[in-house]
C-alpha cells in the first residue's frame, strides 16, 4: 500500500518509462511535469509496438527505472490491436464480438462504440501478459511501478469494483446487477422498487455508454450519451457529446438491449446535490492514498462526465458550498474507495454528494482518471504531485522497498 514514509524515495536521476500511445496529450503532459520536477523526458514504449512484439520490455527497462502505465485509449491502431486480442475470449463470453478478420478490416469511425466487452477482455489479457513479462524481468523492488496490472484491470470492470467497494463497506448506489436485456432490467427495477437507474457499459470510460433511465410504469424518460445509427439493418452505437433524450419505451429498450450485448452494470440513480443552479458530482484524484486534486463537475442533465464539456467548480468553491463536514466525509470516502486498488499510486474517484450534503456515494473508480490539466493541489498539477509523491512514499507489500 502507498504510504508516507521517511525511507529513501525516488530521487532525481531515476529514469521514467511510460507505456502509452504516441501523440497522446497524456504523454506530453507527463513529460512537462517531469521537466518541472527536474527529470528528463520519459522513455516511451508505444502500446502498439509492445502488443505486436516490435518492442520488448527486456530491451528497455533497467534496474532503478520507474514505469508508468498510461491509458491505451484514443488511438485507433491500439484499439484494433486490443480488440483483436479479445476476439477469442469475447466469442466464448457470448457478448457482441468481432473476429480478427473483421477487426483488421475496421476503418476509423469517430465516436463508434466498438465491442467494449471484447476490448476489455483483450486489455485484460494484455495486462496479464505485461504483468508476466515484468515478473520475468526479475527486477523485484528495483523496478518502481506507478500502477498495478491487476488493479488496472479491476478499475476497468465496473461490476467488480462495485462488489469490491460493497465488501469494503464503501457507500455505493445499490446494484441491479448486469441485466442481459431491457426486460430483465425492468423486472429488477420493479423488484427492487428502483424506478430511476443508471445503466452503464461495464467497461466504458469517459462517459461512454451511459443511460440515465426513469419510469413510473407509464412514462419513460432516458438521457444518454449514446447515439444509435442503423447500418444495413444493424444498430451501431456512437458516443456523443450532445446528450440524447428518449421518451419512447421501444427506443429506450432497443438502446439498452444493444448496450447489454456488451455487458452493462446497472445501479440505482441516487440524486446528486446542486450548486449554482446545476447538479454536480466530484472527480477526486487520490495520490499515494491521500485525496488530492478535486473538481466538481456541474451539469443541467443527470450526466456529469467531463468529456461532455460540462462546467467545473474548484475544490475551494465546492468545499465552501457543501461545508467542512460534508467535504471531509467526501474525502474520507474517496480515500477509502482507493483502497480497493492499494498498489496503484493514483486513481480518479467519481463521487456524488446527496442533496442534503450529508451522504455520499462512489460512482466510479478510474485507473487513468488523473488527467486534470490546470487543476492544482498544493501548487502542483496531478502528474507533478504523483512524481513528487514517489519521492516521499514507499510501497508496503509492493514494488518499492
Amino acid at each position, binding site marked *: 500500500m502507498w504510504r508516507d514514509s521517511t525511507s529513501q524515495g525516488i530521487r532525481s536521476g531515476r529514469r521514467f518509462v511510460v507505456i502509452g500511445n504516441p501523440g497522446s496529450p497524456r504523454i506530453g503532459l507527463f513529460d512537462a511535469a517531469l521537466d518541472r520536477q527536474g527529470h528528463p523526458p520519459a522513455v516511451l514504449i508505444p502500446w502498439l509496438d509492445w502488443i505486436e512484439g516490435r518492442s520488448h520490455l527486456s530491451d528497455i527497462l533497467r534496474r532503478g527505472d520507474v514505469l508508468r502505465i498510461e491509458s491505451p485509449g484514443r488511438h485507433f491502431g491500439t484499439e484494433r490491436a486490443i480488440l483483436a486480442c479479445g476476439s477469442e475470449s469475447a466469442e466464448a463470453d457470448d457478448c457482441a464480438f468481432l473476429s480478427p478478420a473483421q477487426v483488421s478490416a475496421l476503418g476509423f469511425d469517430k465516436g463508434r462504440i466498438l465491442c467494449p466487452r471484447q476490448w476489455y477482455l483483450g486489455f485484460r489479457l494484455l495486462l496479464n501478459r505485461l504483468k508476466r513479462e515484468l515478473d520475468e524481468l526479475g527486477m523485484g523492488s528495483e523496478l518502481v511501478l506507478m500502477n498495478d496490472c491487476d488493479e488496472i484491470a479491476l478499475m476497468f470492470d465496473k461490476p467488480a469494483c462495485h462488489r469490491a467497494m460493497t465488501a469494503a463497506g464503501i457507500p455505493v448506489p445499490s446494484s441491479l446487477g448486469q441485466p442481459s436485456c431491457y426486460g430483465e432490467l425492468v423486472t429488477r427495477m420493479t423488484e427492487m422498487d428502483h424506478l430511476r437507474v443508471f445503466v452503464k457499459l461495464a467497461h466504458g470510460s469517459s462517459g461512454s455508454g451511459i443511460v440515465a433511465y426513469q419510469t413510473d410504469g407509464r412514462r419513460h424518460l432516458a438521457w444518454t450519451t449514446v447515439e444509435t445509427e442503423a447500418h444495413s439493418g444493424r444498430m451501431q452505437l456512437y458516443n456523443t457529446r450532445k446528450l440524447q433524450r428518449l421518451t419512447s419505451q421501444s427506443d429506450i429498450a432497443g438502446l439498452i438491449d444493444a448496450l447489454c450485448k456488451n455487458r452493462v452494470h446497472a445501479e440505482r440513480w441516487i440524486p446528486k446535490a446542486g*450548486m449554482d443552479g446545476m447538479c454536480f458530482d466530484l472527480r477526486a484524484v487520490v495520490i499515494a492514498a491521500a485525496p488530492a486534486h478535486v473538481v466538481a463537475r456541474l451539469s443541467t442533465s443527470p450526466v456529469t462526465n467531463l468529456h461532455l464539456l460540462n462546467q467545473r467548480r474548484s475544490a475551494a468553491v465546492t468545499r465552501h458550498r457543501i461545508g467542512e463536514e460534508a467535504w471531509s466525509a467526501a474525502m474520507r470516502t474517496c480515500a477509502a474507495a482507493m483502497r480497493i486498488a492499494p498498489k496503484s499510486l493514483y486513481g480518479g474517484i467519481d463521487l456524488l454528494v446527496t442533496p442534503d450534503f450529508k451522504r455520499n456515494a462512489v460512482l466510479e473508480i478510474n485507473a487513468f482518471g488523473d488527467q486534470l490539466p490546470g487543476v492544482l493541489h498544493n501548487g502542483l498539477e496531478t502528474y507533478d504531485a504523483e512524481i513528487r509523491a514517489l519521492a516521499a512514499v514507499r510501497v508496503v507489500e509492493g514494488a518499492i522497498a
Partner: protein
Amino acid sequence: MSIHENLTTFQGKNVEDFDPDQPLGDPRTVAYRIRLEWDEGNAGTKWVDKFAQLLEKPDSGKVESLVIGAWEEVGGGTDSASIVEALAAARDDLPGLKHLFFGDITSEESEISWIMQTDLSPIFEAHRQLEYVTIRGGGGLALGRVRHERLRELIIQSGGLPPQAIHDVLASDLPALEHLELWLGEPNYGGSATAEDLAPLLGGEQFPKLKYLGLKDSVIADELAGVLANSPILERLDVLDISMGTLGDEGARALLASSQISKLKKLDVHHHFISDELVAKLQSLGIDVDASDKQKPSEWRGEQHRFIAVSE
C-alpha cells in the same frame, strides 16, 4: 432546462434540513426542510415520520416557515396525499405557520412534471395563518375552492399545470392575494390550458389586492400577451410577468400597443423569442423591463420550435 438545486433561502430565512437528532434552532430565523434521502427511503422511513419527529421537538410550535422536500419515491409516482393529511392534522401543532414551500424537489429527485401532487385544499383549510405558499408540481394537483383571508402570495411551479388546477385557483376567494404566479407549462405534461381558462382572471374583478401577476413558462405566451394587453386587470398590476415561455414578436407587439403597459412598474419577459428591434422598443417604455435570456428557436425536421424554460 429544469431545476437542479434545492432552496438555500425561503422568505428571507436560511433553509436547513431538519435533523431529528439535533435540537431545533430558533424557528423564527430558520426555514426547516423535511426531506427523505435515498437510504432513508430504503430503510422504510416515510416523510410523515420525520414530520412527526419535528412536531415532537420543543419549540416546534414556533415554526413559521416549512419546506417540504423530496418524499418517499417521489420520482416513482408516489403522490403527496400522506403529507397533506399529516400537515392538515398538525393544525394546532403549527399555529404560526406562515410560509410553506410544498415540493422543493430537483430534477435529480424527480422531474417537475413527474411530481404527483394531490388535493391540497385541506392545508389551506387547516392553516389559516398561511401568507406565502409555493407549490411545485402540477400532476394531480387540485386546490378545491380556497377561501383564505391571509394568503398574500401563491406560486404554482409546474411543467404542465392542469386546467382544473387553474379553475380552482380562479374560483378561490383570496381577498389578501397580492402575488399570483402560475407556471402553465406545456400540453405534453398536462399544461393544456387555453387563454379561455384564464378569462375569469383577466376581467379584473377577482383578487382585489393583486399587484403581481405571473403567467409564466407558457407555450401560449403570445396569445396570453394579446389578451392581457387589453384586459382590465392590467390597470391594477405593478408587475406583469410573462417570462420563461415562448413569447415572441406577436406578443411583444400586442404589449407595445397596450395603453396600460407603460403604467406597470415592471414587465418581465426573460427567456423569450422577441427580435432585438422589439426588445429595444419594450426597453424604451420607461418602465423596468427584464428581457434577458433571449432564446433561439430550435430547428427540427425543417420546422422551428420554441421551448419553454421548464417542462419535462
